[in-house]
């Protein structure tokens, strides 16, 4: 015997199922009955008949899906993956989502949704982040977690991952992730460990049942859930077009305050965040700004980690400073310092070893104490 939510779970995984279609199917109907309507075993009410008439392929696709993945199997997969199905109206359903105009009718959750009762800040940004961007995200993640705030992000490459790693580095923190595919399918693969850590410490939320593949169209949809769950959204780095700008728009529509980290006008990965600032988002330069936006005491910030790195040699300090301004090549460093290439190669080798510089494709960037988490 399977519970009613198993039918909702199965329906959520149907091809071209949207939250409004699912809501329409479930409206005033027992989930089991809704499932039978969807797969054509029960007489469909007028709006759904009209939908099928407009789009006969959809009815066929749903019937096919019903055969391929019966509710019992979806339910078994949820149990196997340790995924809880939370349906709108359940006790556990997040109250922040309940009144949302495009609320997901079902959530697939690994971990505990109760952690959402704390203060919540979203940290999002581009996947192609700079070292600086990832460090900032890791720093904010760590400091917010240390201040007892729940960090919500998307577990993507770049900014998202760094924010999660930063938050997880604080003992007892409970980060939350909203992902765009099945909660049992770590994506990107390199983040498998991070996924499991977030799921076991905090909560990992998806609108899609286990086994759903990471299709491009799902990520903008997940952004609305993320935006609805947070009180303040921080965009660390974003390109001129990107998922984080969608999240920012969704947040603005829901009255969530959007903060952006300013970046160099020459950096491609700061175009989006700088535009957000032009459009009226508040700038963030340190974690205190975020805490103040939450209405918390900004002075609680600054419990920085101890910087254990060996101080650079006085001669090499100029190199670190030049690379802090922006990424430099060895040639550029040679041009602005009158030191020989060999001498500079020695300097950057020392600085790399001591954790002050990082090289990517011949470009040197200064890194800070957050680099190990970024």
């Amino acid at each position, binding site marked *: 015997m399977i519970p009613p939510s198993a039918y909702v779970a199965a329906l959520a995984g149907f091809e071209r199922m949207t939250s409004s279609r699912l809501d329409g199917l479930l409206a005033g109907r027992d989930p089991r009955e809704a499932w039978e309507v969807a797969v054509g075993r029960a007489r469909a009410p007028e709006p759904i008949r009209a939908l099928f008439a407009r789009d006969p392929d959809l009815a066929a696709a749903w019937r096919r899906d019903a055969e391929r993945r019966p509710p019992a199997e979806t339910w078994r997969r949820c149990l196997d993956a340790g995924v809880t199905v939370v349906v709108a109206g359940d006790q556990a359903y997040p109250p922040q989502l309940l009144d949302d105009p495009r609320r997901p009718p079902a959530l697939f959750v690994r971990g505990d949704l109760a952690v959402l009762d704390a203060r919540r800040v979203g940290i999002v940004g581009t996947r192609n982040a700079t070292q600086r961007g990832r460090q900032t995200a890791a720093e904010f993640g760590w400091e917010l977690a240390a201040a007892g705030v729940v960090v919500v992000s998307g577990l993507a490459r770049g900014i998202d991952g760094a924010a999660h790693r930063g938050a997880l580095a604080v003992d007892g923190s409970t980060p939350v992730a909203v992902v765009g595919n099945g909660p049992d399918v770590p994506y990107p693969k390199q983040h498998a460990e991070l996924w499991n850590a977030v799921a076991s410490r905090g909560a990992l939320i998806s609108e899609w049942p286990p086994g759903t593949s990471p299709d491009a169209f799902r990520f903008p949809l997940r952004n609305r859930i993320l935006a609805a769950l947070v009180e303040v959204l921080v965009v660390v780095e974003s390109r001129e077009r990107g998922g984080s700008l969608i999240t920012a728009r969704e947040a603005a529509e829901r009255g969530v305050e959007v903060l952006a980290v300013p970046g160099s006008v020459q950096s*491609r*990965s700061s175009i989006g965040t700088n535009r957000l600032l032009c459009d009226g988002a508040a700038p963030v330069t340190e974690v205190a700004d975020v805490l103040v936006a939450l209405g918390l005491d900004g002075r609680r910030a600054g419990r920085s980690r101890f910087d254990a790195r060996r101080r650079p040699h006085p001669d090499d300090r100029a190199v670190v400073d030049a690379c802090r301004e922006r990424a430099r090549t*060895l*040639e550029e460093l040679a041009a602005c310092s009158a030191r020989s290439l*060999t001498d500079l190669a020695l300097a950057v*080798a020392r600085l790399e070893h001591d954790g002050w510089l990082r090289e990517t*494709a011949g*470009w040197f960037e200064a890194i800070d104490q957050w680099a190990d988490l970024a």
Partner: protein
Amino acid sequence: MFASIASAMVFGAEGFPIQVEVQVSKGLPGFKMVGRPDETTREARDRARAALQSSGVDWPTANITVNLAPSSDRKSGSCLDLALAVGVLVATEVIPAEAVERLAFVAELGLDGSLRPVAGIVPMVGVLDDRDVVVPVRCAVEAEVAALGRVRPVATLGELLDVLVLQAPWPDHDIDDPGELVAPPAEPDLADVHGQPLARQALEIAAAGGHHTLFIGPPGAGKTMLAARLPGLLPRLERTRALEATMVHSAAGAVLPPGGLIQRPPFRAPHHSTSAIALVGGGSHTLRPGEISMAHCGVLFLDELAEFAPSVLDGLRQPLEQRVITVDRAQLHAVLPADFLLVAAMNPCPCGGGPPGNCVCGDAVLHRYARRVSGPLLDRFDLRVNVHRPGVDDLLANEPGEATSVVAGRVEAARELARTRQGGLNSALTAPQLDVVARLDAGAHGHLRNEMEQGRLSGRGYHRVRRVARTIGDLRGDESDTVAEHDVVLALRFRATLAAALRAGRAA
């Protein structure tokens, strides 16, 4: 009535001596050619007959049998035409046999009796011992390069008959050097390169140690410009190497430089649409040397490495390993020389890359791009150089960079140092040899150990870095058997990787 005339044929880049045997007997008039001629060679009969008639000699009305010895090898090409015509005349006793005893003939015949140039004169002349060799006037300079006997340039069959039949003196032709008719390609100078100190250093190291080099950088960074300046840094070819290179170019029918002998290292830059056969060499009957062999003793430059078909690039692996290329087909076995310095250039990723955060390529795109160049091929590059677009200040700077002649001097000295130490270039140093000639001082050891512990340096990369560090030491004139810390840290800078490998965090 029999004649045997010496001639030669070219196969791959090698010459083979051929005896053209002609027997003329009474009987029904006819002509038979044996000894596995191909279509072109078989047609020699018609060219020879017409040429003789144009020169006022009648084709004998007799039964003629021609054998091309050794009979078991396939013959190809038109270089036996003249030998056939002379053979027929000797066999019919128009020309006395003694007159051709110490001669060899290599030329194609025109129907008007003129001698036409053929490809491969240098390797062919090289296998004719000390015979005097009769060649077309246009090939005289080329023949002089390898001839042990005298070169007898002749313009027409009529002229030759005057000498052989009427015992006239050999004709005295003005020899035009075909190499002087085409302007020799100017070797570009390193002084034109502004800025780019690291890439310039890489070129110098590549030239001094014979290290294969890969330039990775965005479009417009100057990768092609740098590569084109590498041959200028290499020393002049010594006599045996020059002859090897000349033989290949002659066999391929390429125009040779003035004087006929290739003395500067050749520079070959095949386009990325090149087929595997064109790169490796091939053809159905003759084996035309490919670009790899044309770059023998010089530089093979592959621009846009990732745009080459992967199967074409795989053809590079064997010659890179063995320095010769073995071509085996059903009817065809040949060894072509292929000892070249490989220089390649490519973008870090399809969008061109740039400073961190600039790349717009997705993971899938990056991996597809990286797969185009196989790991084993990438492993062959001792030097992998990140080339960046030069800064505005560098481009506008008026002072020229260091000139090729200055750098070439240091390269020559470093090569000499390596030659006296281990008798070869540093790129050929094996791991046991490295333990002897490239010990690590304490600082160098520490750096390499750290790189390996961080997972940034693989076992193969370790040897590569030591080889390159040895060359850097040689360029400084360091004669010790130890490489210093600053040589190793500089060598560590020449380990550029593709963007895909960077994202995956792979060791180089």
